[in-house]
């Protein structure tokens, strides 16, 4: 497999994950979408030194991984390119913010260190939440949920097409790079001189295909609305899912659960 095929495979794999069956998969996409958005907002709203609070938020991805049967390893593997970016954003914090927060034996823990770790965890948690959404709800159902939230159909269509276009683009990259390497067997990458024509060709080819794909959708009556095909989702259970998690997030956000648990231990010692 070349790298484009690998990327394509991962994308299609997400589609397949979303089609699995588990308690979480059976909730409506709307409730999962809302829970995810509220989760991300909550995680992001913690102060940059509130390591304990952010850490407690891992409860949600932990439980959803358990319930949905999605693999945490796979999730981490998928994030292998994004995590370094998150790390890069916060990497300078320890050098800038040097106020010592507390002393752990010989190491003085500074504000910068704490905020760096907190930021990393925030990033990973949000990525996990996004992965869990895409792995438990097919993209069409997510689009349908966006429509029900009254997101204009233009945006939803653009989002859906961008998603489909990505796989078309990757397919073309895969085919073209195979064609290239069959005729340049000793080269590792694609020679720098041919980048321009390769990319230009890629753009044209994938645009043609995307256009035809959109035509195929139009020919079958696509008008910006989504009519779900999945099994009828149980609305009341989905609603409970949404309410329960919203409540849990609010508690975790405004009640210092981490330090309460900490105190509990200290008192017992």
């Amino acid at each position, binding site marked *: 497999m070349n790298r484009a095929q690998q990327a394509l495979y991962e994308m*299609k794999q997400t589609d397949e994950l979303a089609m699995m069956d588990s308690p979480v998969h059976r909730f409506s996409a709307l409730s999962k979408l809302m829970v995810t958005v509220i989760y991300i907002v909550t995680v992001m709203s913690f102060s940059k030194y509130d390591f304990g609070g952010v850490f407690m938020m891992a409860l949600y991805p932990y439980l959803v991984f358990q319930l949905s049967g999605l693999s945490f390893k796979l999730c981490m593997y998928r994030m292998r390119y994004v995590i370094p970016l998150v790390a890069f954003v916060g990497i300078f914090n320890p050098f800038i913010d040097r106020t010592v927060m507390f002393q752990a034996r010989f190491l003085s823990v500074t504000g910068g260190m704490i905020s760096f770790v907190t930021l990393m965890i925030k990033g990973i948690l949000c990525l996990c939440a996004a992965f869990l959404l895409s792995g438990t709800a097919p993209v069409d159902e997510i689009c349908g949920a966006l429509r029900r939230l009254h997101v204009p159909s233009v945006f939803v269509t653009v989002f859906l097409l961008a998603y489909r276009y990505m796989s078309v683009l990757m397919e073309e990259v895969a085919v073209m790079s195979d064609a290239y390497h069959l005729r340049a067997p000793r080269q590792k990458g694609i020679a720098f001189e041919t980048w321009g024509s390769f990319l230009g060709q890629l753009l044209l080819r994938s645009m043609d295909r995307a256009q035809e794909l959109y035509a195929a959708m139009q020919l079958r009556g696509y008008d910006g609305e989504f009519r779900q095909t999945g099994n009828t989702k149980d609305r009341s259970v989905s609603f409970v899912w949404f309410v329960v998690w919203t409540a849990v997030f609010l508690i975790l956000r405004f009640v210092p659960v981490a330090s309460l648990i900490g105190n509990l231990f200290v008192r017992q010692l």
Partner: protein
Amino acid sequence: MIEVKNLTFAYEKEKPVLHDISFTVKDGERIGLIGANGAGKSTLMKVMLGLLDGEGSVIVEGIPVTQKTLAETRKKLGFVLQNSDNQMFMPKVYDDMAFGLLNYGMNKEETEKKIDEVLSSMHIEYLKDRYNHRISGGEKRMAAIATVLAMEPSALLMDEPTSALDPKNRRMIIQIINDLKQTCIITSHDLDMIMDTCSRVILIDEGRIIKDGPAVEILRDRKLLEAHGMELPLSLSRL
């Protein structure tokens, strides 16, 4: 009835790909659209569907194909694309088949019933729950044809329906086309298939209609076919 009148189309100005094409298709008629590579067959179909804007007019059951009437006319015309990869865009074959039906307001039970019916008539029930990226090119072609048949259009336009099919499935498609009651317009380089399915043939070359007439006449005319970059159907050339 489908009427095509004085259709002219160019991808790039000054270089028309279709020149003044006119013909009429009666209800239930089977038409083979033949011509060498690049003759303009796929382009003609796309203009008829309103996917490309040409000059001239296309009238489907009394309704002219224009931007305003697309929803109506497209419901009447089913199109099997030359490239099935572009036709199938949902994760599973089932979703793809359901997509059009749900869009045109069928409910879930009816949709499911219709899909089962079409799949079993084509003997491809096993494809129902398969992922589109995990089926072979020929299976995808069969599935693409199934998605279009499920919508029960009043006319079908098929761009190379038998390319990529093995002999068994090719025969199956010929059988299916012959059992259909709808109007069919079929392009193909498989002239034997055209011979088995169509009563009338339109031969185009460089975007012009060269000849329009009974299939038996045109497909037997070795001189005519060779002059326009084609060969006699195999079944006839052996004689």
